[in-house]
């Protein structure tokens, strides 16, 4: 029997982010599975009423909220204070929240203040014999653990893409305001803006159907003894545009940029996939001129269908890391792929 608090924050437009609605599904499921449990909702943001109305049918016994201009933006000092106040008002034993950048930064601090335990990057939740168990990865997607904790409160930060988006009718929700006053010390930081990457190619777009990964081979000497970086740029940008794919990269290719070598102008570290980069969740991934070494491929853990084009029949992709490996010259293959995509 748990007192469950589902905690979320609004976005700039007052709505809840997708991962928050996914996490609400998780919270409702847990409340059902652990019999006798109740669920409360806690919301943080500038104006939280629209978000509260949107989830009015979630079955929450109470909706607590901290709102106002001080809580519009993602700032550690104010976010920790707001979440702490809601958690205290709720007296929750389980706190379930989405792993947004804002909460990933703030909630570990809240856990410390509440003398709570916390787990992040949760990729699965189940109840076995009345015990709540979570799944999360260790050593950067290299092993997966199932674990539980007896200490309470227990905070759970749930990753995106794990639960279905909650759907329910809008209503008129009553929000119980929790008042929070900020000290001067908690306002030393001001958010001054948001910067988008300058070009489409400079970041991994999570909404694309295809992740196109470029490796260092694109800038290496080719069989004719020359490098062909310009041609590589044209082929890659062509594919991204025509297939509406998102661009990922290996570390080697990214590092060449940092070291000032002649490289693909649009690649930045935001494209890097792998152990020290991103772990994207696209349904399909196509790797080209990338060797498929373990530190890179751990970043592919959540990519369902994987294909690779490489000159080397013994590259990493051949060792059970891709569904299909085409042993061929990526320059020739991608040129043809672009032509075919153009035709239809």
């Amino acid at each position, binding site marked *: 029997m748990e007192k469950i608090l589902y905690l979320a924050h609004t976005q700039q437009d007052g709505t809840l982010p997708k991962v928050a609605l996914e996490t609400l599904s998780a919270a409702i499921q847990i409340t059902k599975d652990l019999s006798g449990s109740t669920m409360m909702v806690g919301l943080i943001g500038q104006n939280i009423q629209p978000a509260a109305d949107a989830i009015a049918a979630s079955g929450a016994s109470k909706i607590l909220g901290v709102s106002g201009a001080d809580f519009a933006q993602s700032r550690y000092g104010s976010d920790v204070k707001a979440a702490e106040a809601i958690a205290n008002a709720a007296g929750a034993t389980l706190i379930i929240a989405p792993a947004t950048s804002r909460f990933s930064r703030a909630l570990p601090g809240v856990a410390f203040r509440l003398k709570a335990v916390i787990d992040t990057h949760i990729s699965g939740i189940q109840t076995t014999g009345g015990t709540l168990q979570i799944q999360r990865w260790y050593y950067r997607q290299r092993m997966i*653990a199932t674990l539980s904790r007896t200490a309470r409160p227990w905070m759970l930060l749930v990753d995106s893409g794990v639960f279905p988006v909650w759907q329910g009718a809008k209503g008129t929700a009553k929000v119980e305001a929790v008042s929070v006053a900020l000290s001067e010390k908690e306002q030393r*930081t001001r958010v001054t803006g948001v910067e988008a990457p300058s070009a489409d190619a400079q970041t991994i*777009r999570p909404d694309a159907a295809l992740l196109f990964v470029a490796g260092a081979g694109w800038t290496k000497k080719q069989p004719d003894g020359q490098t062909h970086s310009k041609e590589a740029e044209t082929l890659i940008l062509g594919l991204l545009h025509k297939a509406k794919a998102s661009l990922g990269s290996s570390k080697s290719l990214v590092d060449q940029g940092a070291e000032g070598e002649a490289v693909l102008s649009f690649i930045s570290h935001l494209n890097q996939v792998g152990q020290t980069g991103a772990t994207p969740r696209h349904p399909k991934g196509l790797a080209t001129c990338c060797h498929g070494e373990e530190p890179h491929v751990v970043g592919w853990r959540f990519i369902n269908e994987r294909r690779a084009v490489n000159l080397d029949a013994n590259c990493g992709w051949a060792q*059970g890391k891709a569904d299909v490996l085409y042993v061929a010259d990526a320059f020739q293959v991608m040129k043809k792929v672009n032509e075919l995509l153009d035709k239809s």
Partner: protein
Amino acid sequence: MTTAFNIVVCGSLVPDPLQTLEPIQGPTGPALKNEMMLPSVLDPWAGHALFEAANLAKHHPGTKVYLVSLGPKAKLQQLMMTIAQKVPFEFVCLDGPASGFLDSREVAKALASAIEKIPGLDKTKLLVFGGYSSASRDAGTTMQMIAEQLGISDVFLGADELKVQPDGSFRIMERIEGGQYQISSCAGAPIVIGWATGNLPEPPNNPQVGMANMRTIMPALQKAQPAALKTDGIQYASVQLPQQQRQTKIVKDTPVEEIAKEIVAWIRS
């Protein structure tokens, strides 16, 4: 105006990513097979934090950089052979496990109390750096808990840039959703930052820096205190390697045309 900072970087070792890892059941919970024998590297994001700290120190004369590491003493000693040549720092060593299966709260407690004990540390000039998350536990929770213990209320996570402004304030770029950056302005020290990759290349080895660092590294290793960490907070039901092996179909000696057709059909399917 230039300010001299006291920068404390928290970072330890993780298994070399090229090693194959295998989980086993140890006396106090899950562990890695042959953990003590596995070659290790400085935790990558913490490494970037160290390079950022050194770069800041270069531009702000009088700045001191400390590296606080919790890990098995013998392995930290090995790690120092490579790290010491990179950038100047003073080493603070905590002898204990570097396992990803530990609770971050225990790790944060040990690190925060080690920071508190650094002689002559000026908390008004304090910047505590660490990685966005570790490559072992990958939780991204330790730095915030250190901040709470040190009473620091400005914390940034996934930062790629810190610029000291002419008025002494900081401009910080943090990674947020959708490949975007949030830009914040903070009045100044003290702050805590969990760094992502930043924008600096790994510094080349410099034997002179290595020699200078060794003067503090050896004594730090010698007087390293064992860190008492509780291991009973988490009940692990299982730790497994993912079933990731696929039946790779290898397409060889096939005309480019055919390969391209197949790829296009697959993209569209």
